Each structure stands twice: as structure tokens, then as C-alpha cells.
């Protein structure tokens, strides 16, 4: 693991501890009020969910073409993080929607596509866990399906009629809201990078363990 890991972890912990105060400093949104503050975690988590799906799908594609295990390790690490950030998105979203829309869930294009992509990556992890020998190739195929869904999730709010806010919200944020938002986004991005490193290290160690088992058997 890189020498930067420990200082970066410390910085990330400080930033994570500061986020509630930064978010509290942001002004209330005019129509949604206090509940809109879920946005500061919900949207960066959604971005990281899509980023993790992109990384996992792309790495799976590379793994299928050149069979290098290093790509497979990146793919599985990112798939796990996709499920983690996806779970955060799918929990915080309905909590926001209940107050803002009056319903917990709406079967619109954005919500449904996010849920199906999340389920594809849950299936990826289940296949990896219980699929037996060769399951990593099957799982890589699943990740490619998940990757194909990502652009659809992003543009869905602009092409279909939905009550979900459009992609225009973030670029037009005033500085008082944009500052806390980008702070949270950076914090979670740093967390994603650190967790990826940690998770890839786990895969490396598992590979080392497999080699040791083979050495003991000989």
C-alpha cells in the first residue's frame, strides 16, 4: 500500500468529521427546507455509485479480453463499493422523497434504473461468492451489463418525465450551497479511493494465501 495511505486516511477522517458542520452552515432550500440537506450525501454517493460501476465494468471488460488478474481485483473491489454507495443512495433517497414528494418510492426512470443497476452488482457479488470455479468470468459479464446501465441512469432525468431533480441542479448551485456540496463530494471521493486501495490489498493477500495453500499441498 502506498505511503500516502495513512496521511490520506487521517485527512479523510477529519473531513468526514467536519461534514456535518459544513452541511449545517449551508442555507435551507426554499421549498424543501431542512430535509434537502440529505442532498449533500445523497448526490455524491450517487456519483460514486456510478463511478464504481464504471470502474468495475471497465475493469471486467479488460479482464475478459486479456485475463490479467489485476483487472479482476479492481473489478471486484469496485463492485463491492458500488453496492455500498448504491445502498446509501437507495436508503437516503426515499427518506428525502417521503418529505419532498410525499411518497417513499416512485417507479420512474432514475429510481428504477438505479435499483436495477444496484441489483446487477449485488448479483455480481453473489456469483463471485457462491459461483465456484470460473465464476469470475460470468461475474465480469454481469458487470458489463451494469456498466451499460450507467449512462442511462445519468441521462434518465433529462429524457423522461420524472419528479426527480434534473442534472442541471448541481451546476447551478449558489456558492453557499455549492461549497458544502463539493466539500462532501471530495470527502466521499477520497473515501472511495482509500477503500479501493484497502479492498484491492485484501484481494492481493487472498491471492498470496491461495499460493501458500498450494505450496503446503505440494
Amino acid at each position: 500500500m502506498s505511503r500516502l495511505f495513512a496521511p490520506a486516511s487521517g485527512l479523510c477522517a477529519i473531513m468526514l468529521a467536519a461534514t456535518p458542520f459544513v452541511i449545517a452552515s449551508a442555507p435551507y432550500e426554499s421549498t424543501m427546507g431542512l430535509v434537502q440537506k440529505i442532498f449533500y450525501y445523497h448526490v455524491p454517493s450517487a456519483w460514486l455509485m456510478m463511478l464504481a460501476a464504471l470502474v468495475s465494468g471497465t475493469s471486467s471488460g479488460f479482464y475478459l479480453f486479456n485475463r490479467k488478474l489485476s483487472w479482476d481485483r479492481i473489478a471486484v473491489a469496485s463492485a463491492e463499493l458500488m453496492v455500498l454507495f448504491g445502498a446509501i443512495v437507495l436508503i437516503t433517497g426515499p427518506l428525502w422523497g417521503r418529505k419532498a414528494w410525499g411518497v417513499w418510492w416512485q417507479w420512474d426512470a432514475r429510481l428504477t434504473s438505479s435499483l436495477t443497476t444496484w441489483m446487477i452488482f449485488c448479483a455480481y457479488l453473489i456469483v463471485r461468492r457462491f459461483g465456484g470455479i470460473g465464476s469470475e468470468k460470468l461475474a465480469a459479464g454481469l458487470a458489463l451489463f451494469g456498466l451499460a446501465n450507467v449512462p442511462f441512469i445519468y441521462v434518465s432525468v433529462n429524457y423522461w418525465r420524472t419528479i426527480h431533480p434534473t442534472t442541471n441542479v448541481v451546476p447551478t448551485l449558489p456558492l453557499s450551497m455549492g461549497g458544502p456540496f463539493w466539500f462532501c463530494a471530495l470527502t466521499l471521493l477520497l473515501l472511495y479511493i482509500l477503500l479501493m486501495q484497502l479492498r484491492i490489498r485484501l484481494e492481493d493477500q487472498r491471492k498470496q494465501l491461495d499460493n501458500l495453500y498450494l505450496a503446503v499441498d505440494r
Partner: protein
Amino acid sequence: MGRWGGCAMMIQKTRFLIGILLLVFSFVFSPVVVWSQQPGEQVDEFVPISELPPEDQLPAAPLLVSAYACVVLALGIYVWSVGRRLSTVQQEIKRLELEIKRDVHN
């Protein structure tokens, strides 16, 4: 006329039937379409939130706190889970390395 004439009659009858069906459907469904395009009810009075029945008063704070609690819990559990898996694998590696060393000496 013969066979082709009968066929033309059949097509004409089918077209007529389709026309009737379309007419019936448009009568049945047009009120639904018009109703669905109506704007929502107009507001003619303001009601303070405290006067709403308890089931309609939905405070935002518990939802916000629940959301942040879920985020912290999910991240905490994940970091703990990765740390636990990593330490288990590292212990197993150490055990096997010792075993291999012992086998080499013997």
C-alpha cells in the same frame, strides 16, 4: 367479383369495425385523459402545519437524522468488515508461512 371481391368486402368490414372500436375507445378514455391533464386542486386557504392531523405532520429532522445515521452506519460496518477480513487473511498467511518454514527445517 368472385374471390377478390369477397376479400375486399372483408377488408371493408374490418376497417369499419376498427373505426367503431376507435370511436368507442375515444369516448370511454377521453374523460380519463382530460381528467389526468387537469391541474391540481387550487388552494383557497392556508392551514398552519400545527393544525394538520398528526399523521400529516411530517417533521424533516427525523428523516435527516435517519439518513445520516444510515450513511455513517453503512460506511462504519463496511470499513470494519474489510478490516476484519484483512486481519483474518493476514493471520492465515502468517500461520501458513510458519508451517512451510517448519516443513523445510524438518
